[in-house]
C-alpha cells in the first residue's frame, strides 16, 4: 500500500489551521464594559457554564477541521492498493461475445435451451457493462 500527495507543497497551508485560535486569542482582549445592577440574574449554573464551554470548544475544532480538510483536499492525496481497485473508475474495455451457433445449442432437455440461456446471460452481461465499453457479437 502506497499513498502520498500529488501536491505535497500545499500542505504548508495546514498552518492556516492555527488561524481560528489566534483570532480568538487576539479578540479576547476586546470587550464592552457595562456597569450593571442586575448581577444576580447573570449567574448561570455550573452545568450550563460547562455546556457553553464545550460548545465553544467544539465550534473552534469544527472551524479548524474545515480548514484542515480544505487544505488536505487541495494537496490531492492518493493511495495505491488492490482492494481499492473497485472504488475507482474502471478503464473502458472492448468485449467480444462468441455465440456457439451449432445445433447442440438447441437441446431441449432442461427448462430452456442452451441457446436461450446464452441469450439471457449475454443480455444481463451487456446490462452490466459501463458506458464507453464496446461490444461485438459473433
Amino acid at each position, binding site marked *: 500500500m502506497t499513498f502520498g500527495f500529488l501536491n505535497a507543497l500545499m500542505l504548508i497551508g495546514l498552518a492556516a489551521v492555527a488561524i481560528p485560535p489566534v483570532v480568538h486569542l487576539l479578540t479576547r482582549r476586546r470587550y464592552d464594559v457595562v456597569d*450593571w445592577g442586575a448581577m444576580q440574574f447573570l449567574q448561570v449554573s455550573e452545568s450550563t457554564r460547562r455546556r457553553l464551554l464545550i460548545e465553544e470548544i467544539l465550534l473552534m475544532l469544527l472551524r479548524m477541521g474545515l480548514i484542515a480538510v480544505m487544505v488536505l483536499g487541495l494537496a490531492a492525496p492518493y493511495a495505491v492498493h488492490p482492494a481499492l481497485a473497485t472504488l475507482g473508475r474502471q478503464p473502458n474495455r472492448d468485449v467480444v461475445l462468441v455465440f456457439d451457433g451449432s445445433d447442440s445449442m438447441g437441446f431441449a432437455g432442461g427448462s430452456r435451451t442452451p441457446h436461450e440461456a446464452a441469450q439471457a446471460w449475454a443480455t444481463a452481461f451487456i446490462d452490466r457493462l459501463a458506458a464507453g465499453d464496446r461490444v461485438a457479437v459473433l
Partner: protein
Amino acid sequence: MGYRGRHPSKFQYVQYIAGSLAYLMLHQLDAVGLVVHDTRVRHLIPPRANSKHLLNLLHTLERTEPGGETSMAPLWHELAGQLPRRGMVIILSDCFDQLPGLVRALRHFRHRRHEVILFHVLAPEELEFPFKRRTQFRNLEARGHRLLVDPHRLRQTYLENFQAFCRDLRARAGEMQIDYHLLRTDEPVDRALGIYLTKRQSRR
C-alpha cells in the same frame, strides 16, 4: 439603582417620581415622609404636611447619590417596625435582592396595616438584555465583582431568571394586596403619578 443605559438612570427616575409624588401629596394636604437608603438608611424625614416640608424633601432628594451594595429586605423589614402610624408606603426600587427576604419585609408592612404601593423600577436594558458583543458586566453595587460573558449565549438564561423573578414578585405582592407596578425608565414619569392618584381616589 445607579444603572444607566440609554435612558435616565433608575435613580434619577425615582428622584423625579418621588419629588412629584411629594408635591401631589402635599397638595392634597397629606403628610409626606421620605426614606432614602442603600446599605443603611441615609435620610429619614418624618411625615409633615406644611409647605416648607416640600422644599426640605426636594433638597434631600437632590443631594442623594446612589450608593453601595444593598440588601434591602432587612432594611425594609426594620423600617416597617419603625414607622409610627398607619399610612401609605410607596416603595420605589428595582428590588434586586432575594425574593423570600423581600416578601417577608413586605408582609411586615402589611402586618402593620400600611397600604403599600410597590413601584418596580427597571431599565429597558434589564428587561430586554439587548447586549450582543462580548461584555464585562461590573457590579455597580459591589466594586470588584465582574463577569465577562458572551451575552448572545447567556441571554436565554438571563431572561428566564429575570422574568421568573418579576412574575413571582408580582404574584406574591398580589397575594398581600400590595399594588405592584412595573415602571420602565423609558416611560414618562407621569404614569407613576397617575397610578398614585387613582389609588388615592379609590380610597375616598
